[in-house]
């Protein structure tokens, strides 16, 4: 009979567990990793205390420009003292609650719509109503609201407006262009190819210039089209071409069998696309689509070039005042934060929808 003796359990060496183990595994795992860690650490030690000193300890928050020049640290006053012009630009001062409410409605609606199972007809009507209210708040003219011309729309509301409608309208247009490019009909196909390639062949700045500088020259005498609308159209047309190519990728990634199965069920082209192909294809391409939408959002700041005052341009305008010249770092950090928050929310938003779509194959009309 063999004797069984309890062998003492050997603990892992102290260098492999706990804090030390974690450090070793993640930060000092090999020569290269150790060097990288030390370099980054050294960099952070040099930079972070200085930044904190500048941004928080020595900074001033609610002073005039003159006092800012005396301060050692950051002059956040450039933001706090000019916040209303930076955010709302030329919108009449006493009516600036209107774009504020409009923006709150927009953000609220977007947050509410983040759950996929809430997307139904009723939500569609609520959206239409909300858009109407937002338009009314911005434009005025009804219910005793003072009319405000669109030339006075500026700042953050303009940025959100251009990007929201840019994204909203360019998406279906892009899907249609992608379908057109896949089409068997030669005229439609070549039109779509020409359109997509032409738009992708020119930079957005050119499109904006065309819309703001050349296009009005071709209009008949006395006809003028709103400047914001022209810029909006340029952004939509531009983004749509890029979306089209991404969606085409999705369509091509679909298995041939899906098309054949749909056809063998006797579905016609539109039914096939609506019920079988697009719901799957569009889901595949959510990540690259969101990439394009995020860059479209950032591209809206190019309207600077045609003298529309989006939030970047109102900031520049504030900085051109002698009192505030020289505090561009602080002002641009603030703008960068706004853009970061918007872009990061967009990517989170899309990831959420993507996840919800993963295991539920909801039949949907348009995703």
């Amino acid at each position, binding site marked *: 009979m063999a004797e069984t003796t309890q062998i003492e359990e050997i603990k892992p060496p102290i260098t492999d567990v706990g804090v030390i183990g974690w450090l070793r595994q993640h930060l000092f795992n090999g020569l290269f990793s150790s060097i990288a860690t030390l370099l980054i650490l050294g960099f952070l030690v040099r930079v972070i205390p200085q930044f904190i000193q500048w941004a928080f300890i020595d900074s001033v928050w609610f002073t005039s420009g003159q006092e800012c020049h005396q301060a050692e640290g950051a002059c956040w006053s450039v933001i706090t003292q000019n916040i209303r*012009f930076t955010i709302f630009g030329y919108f*009449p001062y006493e009516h600036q609650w209107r774009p504020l409410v409009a923006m709150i409605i927009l953000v609220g609606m977007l947050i509410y719509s983040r759950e996929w199972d809430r997307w139904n007809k009723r939500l569609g009507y609520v959206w239409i109503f909300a858009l109407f209210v937002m338009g009314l708040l911005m434009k005025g003219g009804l219910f005793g609201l003072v009319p405000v011309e669109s*030339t006075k729309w500026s700042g953050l509301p303009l940025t959100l407006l251009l990007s929201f409608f840019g994204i909203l309208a360019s998406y279906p247009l892009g899907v249609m262009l992608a379908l057109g490019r896949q089409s068997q009909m030669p005229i439609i196909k070549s039109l779509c190819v020409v359109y997509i390639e032409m738009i992708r062949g020119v930079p957005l700045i050119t499109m904006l210039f065309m819309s703001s500088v050349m296009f*009005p020259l071709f209009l008949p*005498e006395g006809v003028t089209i709103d400047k914001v609308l022209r810029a909006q159209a340029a952004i939509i047309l531009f983004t749509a071409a890029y979306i089209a190519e991404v969606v085409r990728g999705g369509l091509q990634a679909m298995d041939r069998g899906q098309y054949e199965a749909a056809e063998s069920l006797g579905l016609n082209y539109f039914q096939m696309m609506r019920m079988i192909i697009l719901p799957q294809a569009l889901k595949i391409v959510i990540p690259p689509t969101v990439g394009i939408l995020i860059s479209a959002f950032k591209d809206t700041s190019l309207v600077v070039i045609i*003298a529309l*005052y989006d939030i970047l341009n109102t900031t520049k305008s504030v900085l*051109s005042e*002698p009192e505030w010249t*020289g505090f561009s770092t602080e002002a641009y950090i603030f703008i960068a934060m706004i853009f970061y928050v918007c872009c990061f929310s967009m990517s989170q938003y899309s990831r959420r929808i993507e996840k919800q779509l993963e295991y539920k194959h909801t039949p949907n009309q348009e995703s």
Partner: protein
Amino acid sequence: MKLWKSLFIGCSLVAMSAGLAFADNGDTLKDVQAKGYIQVGVNGDLFGFGKADQKGVWKGLDVDTARAVAVAVFGDYKDRLRYTPLTAKTRFTALQSKEIDVLTRNCTQTLGRDTSLGLDFVQVNYYDGQGFMVPKALGVESAKELGGATVCVLPGTTTEQNAADFFRSNNMEWKTVTIENTAELSQAFWAGRCDVLTSDASQLAGLRASAPKPEDYMILPDIISKEPLAPAVRHGDNQWKDIVNYSVLAMINAEEMGITSANVDEMLKSTDPKIQRFLGVSPGNGAALGLDEKFAYNIIKQVGNYGEVFERNVGVNTPLGIERGLNALWTDGGLMYSPPFK
């Protein structure tokens, strides 16, 4: 690539000919009166000339010029002006395409612009020129002593070209530091990255005011280029051009005659026939322009004479702190001169 290029050139040609074709058919005044407001193109980002304050109220020398035109046409300027901020690139097309009726956006009058762009410049409302700013520590008294200097300049502007011409024609060595944006340009200058900063004199004064220690810097007396800044209208509408022109001149003439917004009511009682004609007490001028006889009176009363407008927006008591210099009346050694109002 070639195809695109030729396509682009084709488009530009069409646009240019369209621009010429858009020369005005001569009823801007009627249009403006019918719609009840004047659309005016302004800078938007130039403090002292055209820029909105924190409440979105427009201020500046160019803005006041536009106000004078509105007052001449309507008798007041409140709600009579719609401002369109324009970039240097879009300003002339906006005028050609009738997006605006008058352009008061610190535009330098040049022969090329006057002829080929289908527009007309009127009376200059500000004589600018390019100058240099140096730290006092550099010990330089004149731009001629700047040989070998490092110069901060905005890229691709006439400013850069003017500076290059100046240094070459004086056989001086120089190095440039080009930075895209005025705010960053001045930062680089304060930080000592260059010895000299060059820009339009009107801008230099404002930049100096924004320095950490303004008293350490000085603007050299040399002016190396001519920049007459004038309002512009479409070519071909002579009546409208006259109205804009004489609205500016009325402000200058009032200063010559010593009429200000404060004393204009008293001046109505003046027995001087020149003043009587100017203020419309004895009629004639208004009808000749197709305006109210009191147009000059209204301008002075509501906007002020040229001196008042200058001091209010860019003068020595503003952050820009600009001396009258070339913009003084001809009687004070400047260039501001008005033909007689008769």
